[in-house]
């Protein structure tokens, strides 16, 4: 019995002593933090994607609260609701954010692709593309090891059965992390609602590109000639669609039927 009492007494005394030390340290070494920073931080989506240009969500919260010049709409994954809340909390006005989504511009599947060599190394796109530009014949296309998929902070990407990454439109926040890790830069951030897109990244001349892939853009220019609004330009043997002109002016795309390889896709039906 006596031992039990001793234990209780000793533990209580130790607890009291340490409690006092902690209480003292809390007063003595406390750091003044603007409580708003943590409130803003809690609102942010916590993907730590860095698309705002800061090292993480907390860093952005700190900047947006303390620096009057930092805009409240830099968090792209948060979109309009977060921007509005942040603007309200910090007393700034939030300009419109254009919602955007990741678009994988390659349709050269592993089964169709002409292979340059059998790759047996590290399963990572960047590592594979260091070896003669990757195992696929087309040096501009998707390498297919899913570095983008692993990098997505929101779990919005999966690797398709044909070894091309698929973007979940509901989950994709448009942060652009995947676009920065892709060694071939085939992922583009495009505005949501773009009607058509050229899903190819090949800058090879038509003759070369044709041999390497069956669904590539040859850079023939038929689409750009057929476009009534000059929304398509050919740069380095690749057709590039200006989504703004497309969205604003075009109701019935004429480019789709003209493409000889079917490299232009109608995104409204997909």
């Amino acid at each position, binding site marked *: 019995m006596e031992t039990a009492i001793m234990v209780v007494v000793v533990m209580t005394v130790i607890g009291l002593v340490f409690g006092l030390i902690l209480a003292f340290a809390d007063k003595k070494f406390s750091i003044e933090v603007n409580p708003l920073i943590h409130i803003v931080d809690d609102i942010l989506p916590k993907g730590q994607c860095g698309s705002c240009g800061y090292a993480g969500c907390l860093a952005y919260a700190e900047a947006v609260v303390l620096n009057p010049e930092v805009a409240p709409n830099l968090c792209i994954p948060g979109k309009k609701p977060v921007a509005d809340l942040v603007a309200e909390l910090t007393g700034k006005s939030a300009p419109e954010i254009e919602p955007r989504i990741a678009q994988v511009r390659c349709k050269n599947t592993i089964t169709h692709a002409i292979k340059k060599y059998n790759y047996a190394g590290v399963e990572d796109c960047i590592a594979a593309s*260091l070896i003669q530009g990757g195992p696929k014949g087309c040096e501009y296309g998707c390498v297919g090891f899913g570095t983008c998929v692993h990098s997505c902070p929101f779990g919005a990407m999966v690797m398709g059965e044909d070894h091309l990454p698929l973007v979940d439109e509901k989950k994709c926040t448009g942060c652009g992390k995947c676009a920065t890790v892709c060694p071939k830069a085939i992922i583009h951030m495009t505005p949501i609602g773009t009607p058509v897109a050229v899903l190819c990244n090949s800058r090879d001349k038509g003759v070369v590109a044709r041999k390497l892939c069956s669904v590539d853009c040859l850079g023939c220019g038929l689409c750009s000639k057929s476009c009534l609004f000059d929304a398509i330009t050919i740069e380095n043997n690749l057709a590039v669609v200006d989504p703004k002109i497309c969205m604003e002016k075009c109701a019935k795309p004429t480019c789709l039927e003209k493409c000889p390889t079917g490299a232009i896709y109608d995104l409204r039906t997909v």
Partner: protein
Amino acid sequence: MIKSFRGGVHPKDSKFYTAGKPIETAPLPEVAVIPMRQHIGAASIPIVKKGDLVKKGQVIGEADGFVSSNVHASISGQVIDVGSHPHPIFGKCEAVVISSDGKDEWLEGLPLTRNWEELEAAQLLKIISDAGIVGMGGATFPTHVKSTVQKDKHVDLLVLNAAECEPYLTADHRMMLEEGPRIVAGVRIAMKVLGVEKCLIGIEDNKKDAIEEMTTAFAGLPVDVVALPTKYPQGAEKMLINAVSGRIIPSGGLPMDVGVVVQNVGTVAAICDAVTRGIPLIQRVTTVSGGSIKAPKNIRVRIGTSFREAIDFCDGFLTRPEKIIMGGPMMGMAEPNIDIPIIKGVSGILAIAKGEANTGKEASCIRCGRCVNACPMGLNPSMLSILSERGLYEEAREDYGLFDCAECGSCVFACPAKRNIVQYVKFSKAQNAAAKLKENRG
């Protein structure tokens, strides 16, 4: 005392294919594809255009800056294209394509006879630089850069790298047996350029005949032949210097920091040609070998000849090769096809047969430590590969000496889990370089 280094591995040397075969001269290529990037440093700038007639030995690509090198026409004929062509290392690269006229005519005034002993060191260096000579062991670092002693450094020793520790390769071995006088002259010129009084030749002891040959050839000169135990990577610069002279290069340092310059056998032979006869680097000796080659040979071949022509000269393939490798099997690069040109750094063309290559699926690291025992640099390859896998490139650089790794491949050879450690290391290095570039840009 056995002169060697810590770590290393003992791969099967497989030199029997070609060690006894004299160097043969390969026929002229019909079309020579001569890339502008055949060396470490800036790519050369092509100074000929489509349609130009060129002679053998004519400069077709000029060095772009100090760390760069001239490129010469290896055959006479007409330039049929200047543009992007296949390259054994970069995949694609700007190249000058020459269609042979079959005459193989020298540029006017070549070859000449020159008494090098009358020339000053600076003049010799200029000749070496103009002749486009680069390290022929495979690294292709421009020789004139290596031979220029920096102001705050003092060099007192030349080391001739004749270890040829890569399995299969026998080109240097055959050159030592057949072309002793060229090597002797080349070494003496290289010594004069550097202003050194002493040279050590490191040869692995699986080449007894070459050791004897070199000892007699260099009799009476301040040159010692050092027999080294056969162990990979005996021919790596840092290991070789440590083995022959006992000097240890500090981390991140160069041989010049300990007063040494290392030259390869092929390089000194090229120096001899350039200085005594005015012949620029337009050909090299290379080994075509491997289980899939019908008649493996050591061949003297013009730069720009395709791998295919070189292999055809060796009677083609016996069986379908498992892998085609440029260079040696330990550090060489696997090639996706054989329609690529032979460049200055091609020390071997290997067609590895099934069963010769140890291929298989990579597994997880079991931390057995064999790679740590094998690493000649005393690094921890297992950690380097794991950090790279996890994306911790900065830790690999700062805490695990990433940039001390010479990518010799001893760890991969020793690894029972078949981990692609060297590729992880290369990947980490590339990521670090990219991060540095980003930082510099702001």
